[in-house]
Every structure is written in structure tokens, then in C-alpha cells.
């Protein structure tokens, strides 16, 4: 049952991600990415990290996908009304796929060859309260830094997006 669910999730994620990167319709690509992100959230849920799953949905589906769609609409060209983009140059596509395949060829045997220590018998527990305490106590500094980065990134994004190019 559980394995079957995992298989479905993996198939969903890999399938939608792979198809999304091949499609010519940009909007559909983005929406497929959304499915893929939702699948990843499902994976977190399956693994028992429910807080992470919701955070993933909130951040990726709620925010990143919106911003992406916005960017897609704002960078729409008049000659691509349906947001159908030209396929990549054959050489480039081939190069990309080859490199991807090479990395996979390295990674997969490496993973298969590695012996990992045995997993703990019971699944690790994970409560929101525990997470909060961990964040605040052990990783307080990191949290602050991340907050800072986020703020700077937000401001930077606003500045970038709001800057009007002068006509020259």
C-alpha cells in the first residue's frame, strides 16, 4: 500500500517534471511544474514530514507558481500569443540531455553501490512544537540569516521589477 503510494508519487513527480521541460506551451509547463511540486509535497507527507509538506505547498504552489505565472504573462511576446515558445536548438538540447544522462550515469551506480547504515526501526517523530523549538534554539542564528536573506531578496526583487528601463 505504502510502497504503491510512493511509486505513484515518484512516477507523478518524474513524469510531470520531464514532460514539463519538453513542452512548448509555457503555461502548461508551469502548471506541470506545479503538479511536480505538489508531488514533492505528497512525498513529504508520505515520509511523515507533514509540516514540510504544507510549507512546500504554501511556498511553491501558493507563491512561487504565482510569481512564475506573473513573470510568464509579463514577458509575453506579441509574436507568441499562446505562449508557444520555439523548441531549443538541437545542439543545445542534445548537450543538455547528454550532460543530464552523464550525471545520472555517475549518480545511479554510486547510490546503488553505497551501503547505508541501517535505518532506525521506527519512523522519526516530528511535531510542530519540536520543529519550532529546534528552529529557535539550535538554529536561531541561521533563522535570522535566512530571514535577512529573504528580506533582501524581496527588496531586490521589487527594485528589479519596478525599475523602468529608460528608452535608450
Amino acid at each position, binding site marked *: 500500500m505504502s510502497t504503491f503510494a510512493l511509486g505513484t508519487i515518484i512516477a507523478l513527480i518524474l513524469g510531470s517534471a520531464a514532460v514539463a521541460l519538453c513542452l512548448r506551451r509555457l503555461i502548461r509547463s508551469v502548471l506541470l511544474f506545479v503538479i511536480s511540486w505538489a508531488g514533492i509535497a505528497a512525498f513529504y507527507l508520505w515520509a511523515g514530514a507533514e509540516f514540510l509538506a504544507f510549507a512546500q505547498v504554501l511556498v511553491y504552489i501558493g507563491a512561487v507558481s504565482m510569481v512564475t505565472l506573473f513573470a510568464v504573462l509579463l514577458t*509575453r511576446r*506579441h509574436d507568441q*500569443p499562446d505562449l508557444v515558445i520555439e523548441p531549443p536548438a538541437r545542439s543545445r538540447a542534445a548537450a543538455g540531455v547528454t550532460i543530464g544522462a552523464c550525471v545520472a550515469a555517475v549518480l545511479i551506480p554510486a547510490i546503488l553501490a553505497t551501503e547505508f547504515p541501517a535505518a532506525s526501526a521506527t519512523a522519526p517523530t516530528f511535531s510542530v512544537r519540536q520543529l519550532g523549538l529546534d528552529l529557535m534554539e539550535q538554529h536561531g542564528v541561521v533563522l535570522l540569516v535566512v530571514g535577512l536573506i529573504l528580506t533582501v531578496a524581496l527588496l531586490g526583487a521589487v527594485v528589479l521589477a519596478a525599475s523602468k528601463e529608460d528608452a535608450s
Partner: protein
Amino acid sequence: MIMPDAARPETPAPSPVPAPGPSDAERDELRRHGILLTSIHELANWGRSHSVWPLQFGLACCAIEMIAASMARFDIARFGSEVFRPSPRQADLLIVSGTVTKKMAPQVIRLWNQMPEPKYCIAMGACAISGGPFKQGYNVLKGIDRFIPVDVYIPGCPPRPEALLHGLMELQDQIRAGRTAASRPTVKAAQASGDYPVPDFGPEDLEPPANPAIWQPPALVRPDKP
């Protein structure tokens, strides 16, 4: 960006009328035997008749009386019809309220074509029926029924809001009885595809000035002027 104009449904519109139910005679016969027959067909017609959503569409003076009919004094909401939808896709009823000029006629027909079946049309006021007081004008269409089938004609210039409500009740009766204009045999035969032809702007007049498939006036004879 270019967005294609055409948004025609790819499949022809389904026939607005479900398969006819039992005839009145049969029904009476069944009633005599104690069988109360409420077919799906009748239930659907009951629902449609009580939920006639008009298109939020006004042409001229009559539109104001149409708005007045939806206001507190007359309250078309009592009939379940206050939901004036701005998009033809969600509307059931086209109230042609006012003068249809030749410049406007193609748009009215397009709106009618965009409405999903089953749909109804009320010609409100003299202008919509026949061109009315403006019928002598060079830019006035002499009646919207030259291009689209009309269920109820409400004369008046403009008709009182009550007259509109009366026309709406008339329409509800027609819907319940399943005999609206779009279901009339002649109109149906003329419009097998579901789309009503939209005339072109010509150098002098609309081309064509009427749709002969649905517009067949009786011949006119005058005894004193042979």
C-alpha cells in the same frame, strides 16, 4: 498579442429541446389511471422557467424601464430573474430593449449566438419589434425578429415595467409548455447549425437586410390601393 476572435463551440450546439415527452392526450389518459407523470423534461422546464437570467444588455429607452423592472418597485427578482449576467455565456434571456440600429444589429446577433441553449428572446418595445417610431430611419433595423427568433413581443414605447413582467410571465408559460421560439419547427429547420448568420456592413444597408430563413411576413393586401 493576438487572441483569436473566434470562440465558436467546436461541436454544433445540441438541440435545445430534449426528446419530447408524452403528448397531452397520453398524459391525460395516464392521469385518469392515477399515474402522475412528471418527466425529467417537465422538471427541467420548470427549473428553466423559474430561473431565467437575462443578459445585462440595454439598447435604448426601454433598457431604463428594464432596469426599473429590476428595481425595488417592481422587483423582477421575485421571478428569480434579477441575476442580470453581464456575459452572454451565463445568460438565458436576451431582452432586446430598445432600438436596434443597423450598426448594432450584428453585435446583437453575435450576442445571441454566444448564449448557450436553451435561450430565449424578448423583443421589448416598439423599436425592437418593428423599428417603432424610428422605423423610417435609414440606420434603424425594422425589427430584431428579422435575424433572431423572438419568443415574446412586448409593445409599448416604452412598455411599463409591469408589461415587462407580464411578458416574462408569458415567457415562463411558454418555457413550461416547451413551445419557445427556438423550438418552433420552422426556426429549427432554418438553424440546424445553431448559429444565426451575422450580416455584413454594406455600403448602404446591412447585407442581407433580413434572414429569409426565419423572417417570413404575411403578404400585405390593401383593398383601396390594389
